[in-house]
């Protein structure tokens, strides 16, 4: 298994962890963190691809630029999500989604 495959599989695993966290946690702040974990996994995959497609030793610049753009978008989304969570807390008194009783 090459270094690329290792990084790519790790990225997939991290993405899965983030996705699980997004769905499973009821606290809004943890959901925001889970979202960030998912985006980090995507960046990791993109950078692994950049390294794999390296030309004469320097990594492919196109996925690197995509990651830079992605980081800015992730920051913007996190800021907005935090503002929303703040607002929800101001309105409802707590930063959690209402927990549902398990049916299984």
């Amino acid at each position: 298994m090459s270094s690329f495959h290792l990084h790519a599989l790790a990225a997939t695993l991290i993405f899965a962890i983030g996705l699980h966290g997004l769905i499973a946690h009821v606290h809004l702040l943890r959901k925001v963190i889970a979202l960030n974990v998912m985006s980090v996994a995507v960046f990791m995959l993109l950078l692994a691809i950049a390294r794999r497609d390296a030309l004469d030793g320097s990594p492919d610049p196109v996925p690197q630029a995509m990651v830079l753009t992605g980081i800015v978008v992730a920051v913007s989304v996190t800021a907005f999500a935090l503002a929303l969570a703040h607002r929800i807390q101001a309105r409802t008194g707590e930063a959690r989604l209402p927990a549902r009783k398990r049916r299984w």
Partner: protein
Amino acid sequence: MGAGLAVLDLPEDRRGLAGEARAALPESGVDHGVTAVLLSFRAFDTWLEVGVLLVAVVALLVLQRSGDLSFRLRPADPGAVLLGYARLVAPLIVLVAAYLLWLGTHAPGGAFQAGAMGAAAGILLALTGLGVLGRMPGALLRALLALGFALFTLLAAATLAAGTLLAYRGDAAGALILFLEAAVVLSVALALAAVFVGARPGPREPGG
């Protein structure tokens, strides 16, 4: 698991677009591959990215039902050491930001990196009570926030009218990119600092 199988199944084509990017580099006006992709070949993505950041700040203002950041005005009580440090370091941070912006033409750097550093200076000033973000009139704040995106949009409209969207080439392109990046740095720094300042608990709220 499906995604795991998908990445294992990725085609073995190892070229990517590195070859094309390297070949087109002299036309882009800058000397660094990533900067060229960000601000020349894929300037469309960067344009919309600046727009996304602006939308986030506007959304924050809308959620707070405020036209400026005065809702976050609160007295700060920094010690003398922190005040002195902030006064000393903030201009240095701005200097480093300007350097990063220029550096982007031939090494890792550029508009967003410089904007993040500028935001760090703004946040430092806001945390020590020296900043003007809370006292800036709303119209000026919004004008500066929109400046980067507006300039970029103007450029997009101009290049679209002249032929291809956001297609500029040659040495003039280098100067144009730098000018555009400067406006973006200002807007990005202001946006990031505004988002930080605006999201802290206010003086009347728990945690403030």
